[in-house]
């Protein structure tokens, strides 16, 4: 198609900036049930601001709930920070953050910050050299090459409504409903109305074909539920920004319900093909008072139908 020109055109000098994982999920209304949500929502939404979370819904307080057998109960509607870039909050397994990544050259470290300006007024020194949140994960050669060459314009599986996979679904801005009985836990993702069901009674993994969401098994270590997921098909990405993984990925989640209204969630990545060392992220989930809704990604995916998004092709 011909490029468009317009009556008044100001040349765009800036390059695209990717908002990375520093963005938390801040709804335009309080984190609330639907009744409170509508009241807060109309005010906040039509006010156009992000103040909905201020002075709004507060999660319930109280001790950590438990099942009849004494195991911690993780059931609930969990609001999670939208995490489009896991690298922004990633650390090594000892909790040390990785260095800033060069936003203009994936897979390389950001240049050092300029020296402080001795003539600068107090409080107005130069910014650090790290860009806006992206950090340099410990890639192997394969991982770095994969990351450098990733272009969703060549095939975007989530844009094509293919299964997001476990990590991408956890990172999604859409709510998650967790249901738990004695032997099983189910993640009910509003994102595309997907689910992921897995045992939490300590049984071993199945040995089947690789899948989009992987094969998960869980067990309790004290009050922490540890969930290990393996056997991924390697067709997904860890986050919206596209950080890579292979079919050798093992994800280890640790759910700790610190009180009625909060979960501390740790996710560790082990993928020796993609990363030279393990790394992890830590975030807090908040209990909401709502329920998940149906979400049919496929019902009007105009971007795909009209060719602006390409579906990826997978070779077996």
């Amino acid at each position, binding site marked *: 198609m011909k490029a468009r020109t317009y009556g008044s055109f100001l040349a765009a000098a800036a390059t*695209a900036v990717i908002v990375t994982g520093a963005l938390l999920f801040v709804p335009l209304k309080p984190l609330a049930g639907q009744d409170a949500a509508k009241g807060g929502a109309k005010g906040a939404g039509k006010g156009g601001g992000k103040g909905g979370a201020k002075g709004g819904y507060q999660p319930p307080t109280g001790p950590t709930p438990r099942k009849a057998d004494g195991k911690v109960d993780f059931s609930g509607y969990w609001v999670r920070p939208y995490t489009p870039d896991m690298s922004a909050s990633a650390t090594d397994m000892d909790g040390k953050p990785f260095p800033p990544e060069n936003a203009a050259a994936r897979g390389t470290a950001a240049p050092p910050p300029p020296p402080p300006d001795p003539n600068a007024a107090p409080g107005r020194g130069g910014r650090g050299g790290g860009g806006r949140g992206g950090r340099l994960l410990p890639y192997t050669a394969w991982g770095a090459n994969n990351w450098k060459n990733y272009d969703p314009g060549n095939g975007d599986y989530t844009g094509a409504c293919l299964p997001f996979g476990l990590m991408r679904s956890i990172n999604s801005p859409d709510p998650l409903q967790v249901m738990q009985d004695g032997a099983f836990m189910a993640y009910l993702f509003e994102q595309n109305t997907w689910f992921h069901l897995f045992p939490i009674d300590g049984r071993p993994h199945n040995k089947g074909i690789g899948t989009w969401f992987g094969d998960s098994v869980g067990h309790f270590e004290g009050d922490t539920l540890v969930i290990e997921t393996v056997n991924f098909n390697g067709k997904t990405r860890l986050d919206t920004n596209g950080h890579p993984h292979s079919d050798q990925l093992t994800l280890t989640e640790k759910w700790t319900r610190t009180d009625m209204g909060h979960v501390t969630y740790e996710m560790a990545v082990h993928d020796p093909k993609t990363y030279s060392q393990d790394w992890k992220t830590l975030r807090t989930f908040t209990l909401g008072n709502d329920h998940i809704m149906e*979400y049919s990604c496929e019902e009007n995916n105009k*971007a795909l139908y009209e060719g602006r998004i390409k579906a990826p092709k997978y070779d077996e």
Partner: protein
Amino acid sequence: MKAKLAVFAVGLLSAAVPMLAHHSFSAEFDNTKKVVLKGSVTKVDWLNPHIWIYLDVKDEAGKVASWQCEGGAPNSLTRNGWTKNDLKKGDAVTINGTLAKDASNTCNASNVTLPDGRRVLGGSSNPDAPKE
């Protein structure tokens, strides 16, 4: 009522309020190409994964062009108190958005404003927008 056209690309990076996206924004839209559309709504599709706002925009010469602009996801808009009736056929609107890479009359709507200045359907699917 067909509002007068103002279609121009601006070099400034708009302060979008990102809402929820299920996929890479930059695969579809060019964050360096902004547009402001002033026109009349012809249809609103309140469907997943994104709502779509269709509008007729008249240029200085009086020629009408049809545009389509992607909005947020219906579920998140609903939770924020919006409904498909908040914008109706015939409403005059100003849409600040980001152009699609395919050079069609397609944008991602950062914000939608009525003539009296009220914003409706707050938020966009633009997580790649500059930090708001």
